[in-house]
């Protein structure tokens, strides 16, 4: 229902066509993901890099095409809709933000140039004792001659096993407020003292525990200013929430379309099951909610693009909250509409459910988003 510019429309159409051709069938997706075990296909991602899509939100000097969050969202939405296994994109696009805003030219050239060429980036922030509560981080980067030594554990780190670098947030000052004394580092994933271990989840191989043991990082690994990771992180929250929202908008739309296709096809008692009012009304409600999500995501993206330095805590949290909750609802109800077929792995609905159910937790739980939104009303 949102209005795209002609350029955006043709970009979306190109992605849709690409996905129909490359990831349109279950067999194609199985081949690209080792039967669902992998969430990211480097081969497919490389083809997208060739097409110049992965730099859609980067400036031309780093190989990008100079678009904004709107275009990044469009990419995230349509690839999610197309079930393209490019799970590495989201953390990559989110990681790009701090590099763009705060990194040295050398860091930018290395990391952003890599992104446009199809490299994956990760962000190492959450810890076992600090999920949404970033300020509780304890992973320590101790100043030593010529650099820092990092010790500690990170958990929940998406795509670390695929990435060139992790954007690490570690504590460089033990004293002061919990929000102070955090610093960002660019850590090549092969650095000695870094160990990456996959965590089995309902969604397959996506997240990792990362252990840092006496891990030495040189001075020039610091991204932005020492002790200033907190404000640097805050500046990136709009984009993290929006990209996740856009991705779930795409996944939600796919779940919806799959369910509608099924209920039009499947017959019981001589009629398509979708013609029963109980299902027809459900379809109507879900369609309405998805259109609301679309309008919300792209309106907030436009606001962010109009004023890139503006913090949009209320709006970005609304987009994240509403879209992930809606996508989950669509998948849950879609599964019910498909009956036993929704529960069986041959159909995609169960993978839609697994993907969406975690989306209300990732990138700040729904509860955290509600806290943030409530706070903007002075509560």
């Amino acid at each position, binding site marked *: 229902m949102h209005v795209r510019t002609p350029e955006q429309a043709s970009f979306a159409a190109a992605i849709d066509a690409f996905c129909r051709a490359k990831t349109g069938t279950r067999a194609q997706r199985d081949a690209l993901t080792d039967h669902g075990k992998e969430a990211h296909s480097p081969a497919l991602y490389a083809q997208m890099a060739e097409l110049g899509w992965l730099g859609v939100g980067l400036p031309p000097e780093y190989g990008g095409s100079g678009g904004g969050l709107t275009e990044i969202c469009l990419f995230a939405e349509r690839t999610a809709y197309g079930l393209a296994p490019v799970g590495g994109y989201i953390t990559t696009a989110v990681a790009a933000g701090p590099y763009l805003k705060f990194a040295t030219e050398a860091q930018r050239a290395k990391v952003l140039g890599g992104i446009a060429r199809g490299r994956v980036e990760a962000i190492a922030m*959450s810890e076992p*004792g*600090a*999920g*949404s*509560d970033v300020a*509780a981080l304890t992973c320590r980067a101790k100043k030593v001659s010529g650099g820092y030594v990092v010790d500690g554990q990170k958990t*929940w780190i998406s795509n670390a096993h695929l990435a060139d670098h992790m954007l690490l947030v570690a504590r460089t000052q033990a004293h002061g407020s919990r929000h102070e004394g955090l610093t960002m580092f660019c850590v090549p994933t092969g650095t000695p003292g870094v160990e990456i271990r996959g*965590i*089995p*989840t*309902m*969604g397959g191989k996506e*997240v990792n525990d990362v252990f840092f043991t006496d891990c030495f990082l040189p001075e020039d690994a610091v991204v932005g200013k020492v002790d200033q990771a907190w404000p640097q992180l805050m500046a990136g929250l709009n984009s993290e929430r929006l990209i996740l929202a856009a991705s779930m908008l795409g996944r939600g739309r796919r779940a919806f379309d799959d369910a509608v296709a099924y209920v039009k096809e499947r017959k*019981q*008692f001589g009629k398509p099951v979708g013609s*029963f009012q*109980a*299902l027809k009304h459900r379809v109507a409600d879900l369609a309405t909610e998805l259109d609301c999500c679309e309008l919300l995501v792209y309106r907030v993206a436009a606001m962010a693009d109009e004023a890139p330095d503006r913090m949009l805590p209320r709006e970005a949290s609304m987009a994240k909250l509403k879209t992930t909750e809606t996508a989950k609802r669509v998948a*849950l109800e879609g*599964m*019910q509409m498909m*009956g*036993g077929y*929704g*529960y*069986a*792995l*041959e159909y995609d609905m*169960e993978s839609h*459910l*697994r993907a969406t*159910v*975690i989306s*209300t*937790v*990732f990138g700040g*739980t*729904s*509860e955290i988003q*509600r806290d943030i939104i409530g706070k903007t009303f002075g509560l």
Partner: protein
Amino acid sequence: MTARPRWSSDELEQVRQLAATYFTKEVIPNVPKHVAQGHPDKALYRRAGELGLLCMSVPEAYGGGGGTFAHEAILTEEQVKAGDPSMGFAVHCSIVAHYVLSYASEAQKQKWLPRLASGEWVGAIAMTEPGTGSDLQAISTRAVRDGDFYKVSGAKTFISNGRVCDFLIIVARTGGPGHAGISLLCAEVSDTTPGFERGRILDKLGGKGQDTTELFFDELQVPVVNVLGGEEGKGFIQLMQQLPQERLSTALIAMASIERAVDLTVEYTKQRHAFGKPLFALQNTRFELAECATLRRVCRSFIDECVESHLEGKLDVTTAAMAKYWVTDQACIVADRCLQLFGGYGYMKEYPISHLFADTRVLRILAGANEVMKELVARSL
């Protein structure tokens, strides 16, 4: 956390203890193996038989436990509480053995029940077909009479215990169209039975390690004397009469899931800290769990009343449909809300809540989708 049900007794609590030990000590250590191979070990059925945990509501004369439905309810509760997704006891005991007990001739009972009760055989029922669902009129598997045998041909899907079963009740068409043409045929099957083929083990969102398969029949020979109850054309009525108990069994699984989800989540949120406090100190967490605990309490009241009325033989179709639809809906809601309170950990396989979420989801679909239950309730109004 959870008080014993109203309808329980000291003897039933002893059975509970036995079942709990069996599941935690003998089954749970094997679950990873069951998940890897896609089906449970048959030895575990035999072990359950040895312990007297199978077919507890079947009279002792047929090798059963001489108990009631309450005994089977206890087994269900303990299976869920232990977190075992793999053993197909609900189908084996509460459905297959119960069909035989209810409809079979004396000779059939004596032949089949002891082997089901001992766990020598695993039972299954082949009802759903790729093109049918709740629409039993559309059954197309045909049984054609040929002397003393039927030749059964057709395809079935979503068959629980389909990989390991030795004894199969087949819903087939022995007559013309409509309900009156449907019969239940009992077949002894093995991997080498001619005309019988087990299809793929279907990979499901949850219920991992429990074998749900397709089955194919190509002129499978079933003796005419194996028609359940001895008379053709009774299949539809037989199916209908068992439905209240099957639905109540499903509701019991849901009930136990709710209890487990709340217990796990109260424990987790009290121990896990965020923003310097246990998660349980946050008002949102407290209210979510208060609501879930209230649902647990309310469901328990209702379920206990249903069990009691079933034990008295008074559970009607409407109330059973209400229990099936409502308690399974609540189980999914509670599982979802509890998973959310675990945050990211709820998604990780090492936390049982992730399995509970996935395993529970199917309850709203099987034993008659909840939409069908609502239609049944509406008819009573």
